[in-house]
């Protein structure tokens, strides 16, 4: 963890009647750390966020955000937390300045401070020239940036971003991810909820995988890969031989220490190993099979996610 713990959830639980939406979630996020929360729809991510913000009351457990209990001190928590909801909305008839000045006044900022912070935040998100434009003229991407400007204006110690890149084009997404890294550089703890696993992997220090209201897995992507993919070593092999793809895959699977073999198409195979087996693979394939390349593959969060839920589905059957 990067620094002092600014978000701490202990056995946080939320029930709606008989439905258990969040089930004893434990979570810690340090200052200057970006933690991704992942999971299918209805897995409890947004409910957890709402409990951390004090917008819904936990049935059990407790949380501390920026040193305050969201249940007892929601106003203090909200003064220190910037929240960007999924598909953020603004008052379309008002200008960007009027929209952000309203939330700035609600946050208790004096008028002079609002103007200064607004200009700075708008420049930072690339909306400098649009301060006086009505929000109804903004594209969804601009609205997302404006939402981030609102978070920046607050200078929060915690930023909670719920699906912030959903409506963005690839270029804007990359810019937006850069801005999220900027929050980390400011020392802000970021909780990022997203379905875009590649984006989460590219910016997050750690991830927490939600399933049916629980955090099923948490840690760095490499740690998760180790637990889900087996052994934590993923090796990409490029090879061709007379026995064909099936034969090579069979030959690889027979090597002790290899957990799984995934043909990737063409002459490429991805192998999950319990240890570094590059030398052993080269020895076992030779001389019948021509080894074109062999190297460690970076573990993909996408693979971890898909594998975890595939196994969860099979276990449930």
């Amino acid at each position: 963890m990067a620094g002092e713990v600014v978000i701490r959830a202990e056995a946080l639980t939320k029930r709606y009647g008989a439905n258990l939406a969040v089930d004893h979630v434990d979570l810690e996020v340090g200052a200057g750390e970006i933690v991704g929360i992942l999971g299918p729809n209805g897995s409890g991510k947004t409910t957890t966020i709402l409990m951390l913000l004090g917008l819904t009351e936990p049935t059990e457990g407790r949380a501390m955000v920026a040193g305050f209990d969201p249940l007892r001190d929601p106003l203090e928590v909200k003064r220190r937390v910037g929240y960007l909801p999924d598909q953020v909305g603004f008052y379309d008839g008002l200008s960007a300045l009027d929209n952000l000045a309203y939330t700035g006044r609600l946050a208790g900022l004096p008028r002079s401070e609002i103007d200064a912070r607004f200009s700075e935040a708008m420049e930072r998100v690339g909306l400098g020239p649009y301060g006086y434009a009505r929000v109804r003229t903004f594209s969804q991407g601009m609205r997302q940036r404006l939402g981030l400007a609102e978070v920046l204006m607050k200078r929060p110690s915690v930023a909670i971003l719920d699906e912030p890149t959903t409506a963005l084009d690839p270029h804007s997404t990359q810019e937006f991810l850069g801005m999220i890294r900027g929050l980390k550089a400011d020392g802000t703890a970021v909780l990022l909820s997203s379905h875009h696993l590649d984006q989460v992997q590219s910016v997050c220090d750690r991830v927490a995988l939600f399933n049916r209201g629980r955090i099923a897995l948490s840690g760095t992507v490499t740690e998760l890969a180790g637990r889900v993919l087996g052994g934590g070593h993923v090796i990409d092999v490029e090879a061709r031989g007379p026995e064909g793809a099936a034969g090579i895959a069979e030959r690889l699977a027979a090597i002790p220490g290899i957990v799984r073999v995934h043909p990737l198409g063409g002459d490429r195979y991805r192998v999950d190993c319990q240890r570094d087996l590059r030398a052993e693979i080269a020895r076992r394939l030779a001389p019948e099979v021509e080894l074109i390349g062999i190297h460690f593959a970076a573990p993909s969060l996408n693979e971890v996610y898909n594998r975890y839920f595939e196994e969860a589905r099979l276990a449930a059957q």
Partner: protein
Amino acid sequence: MPRSSGIPAARRGSPWTGVGTVVAKETADHLSGVRMVVIEALIFLVALVLAWFSTTTIRETIGQSPFLFLRLLTITPDPIPFSFISMVGLVTPIIAIALGFDAINAEFNQRTLSRILAQPIYRDALLFGKFLARLLSLSIALVSLWLLVLGLGFLRLGLPPSGEELIRMLGFLVATIAFGGVWLALAMLFSVLFRAPATAALAALGLWLLFALFWTVMVTPLLATLIAGPAEGIFGPNIAYISTEQTLQRLSPNTLYSDAAVALLNPTTRALGPVFVSLRELSTMVNAPLPVSQSFILIWPQLTGLIAATIVIFAIAYIVFQRQEIRA
């Protein structure tokens, strides 16, 4: 260290935090919004025409009544088919509904609610701020209307209103604002209950139609007959029926308001509802105006009834809103 479930924790921080900011923003939105400008323009136009014809009629019969300005509000001048108080009684609920029907559901639909509630403000403060802002906008519209009629009356009649007339007219203004408050609270309750603004507006207008058109004429006689028997008994009017019908009628904010308006603007009104007096008593009181303090005592139950109804309806809206999940 899990918190024991079922025991709500006391929240810290003032429940008023942010109310002023919400009131300022929402009032500015309403006073500059096209919707309010159009409604107010129409009402002012009708009021202007009404005041013009009323003053014309009064000028022809000046000296017949010591309460010229009160007559200005109560007479039905030719060729207009209704009086000023009828018009105010008709349009006040409509303005209140127009102000309140999308107070909360529009925030859900614009997806602004979670963003606003993520700021340091309690959701009850948001609801209360919105209500106050709308009540303030409604009050500004009604005070402007009141001043317009008063000014035009002053200009056309060439006389200032007496102190008693002014107090009675102010009382009427307060009763009208309280009446508007009931419909505003109802419209806001529907805006909390229904996510579609059109549904909320229709529900509020439907209820208004029920109370304005059908309550006194159809609903209360029917219910009173079911509860207390027929209106006419063997020995004359059925007192139980009359009493029940009156109680039922007073469940309607329109009845409470019209009772209060009549008692305030017509000083000869000595009682609201059925009165049983001897002929001797009657001969001493006919056409004698009631002192203004007595008129206020007379309308006190109606006025407090309107204010209480506003508080109860707002409290229901508050409870429903507190229980809603904020995900938009």
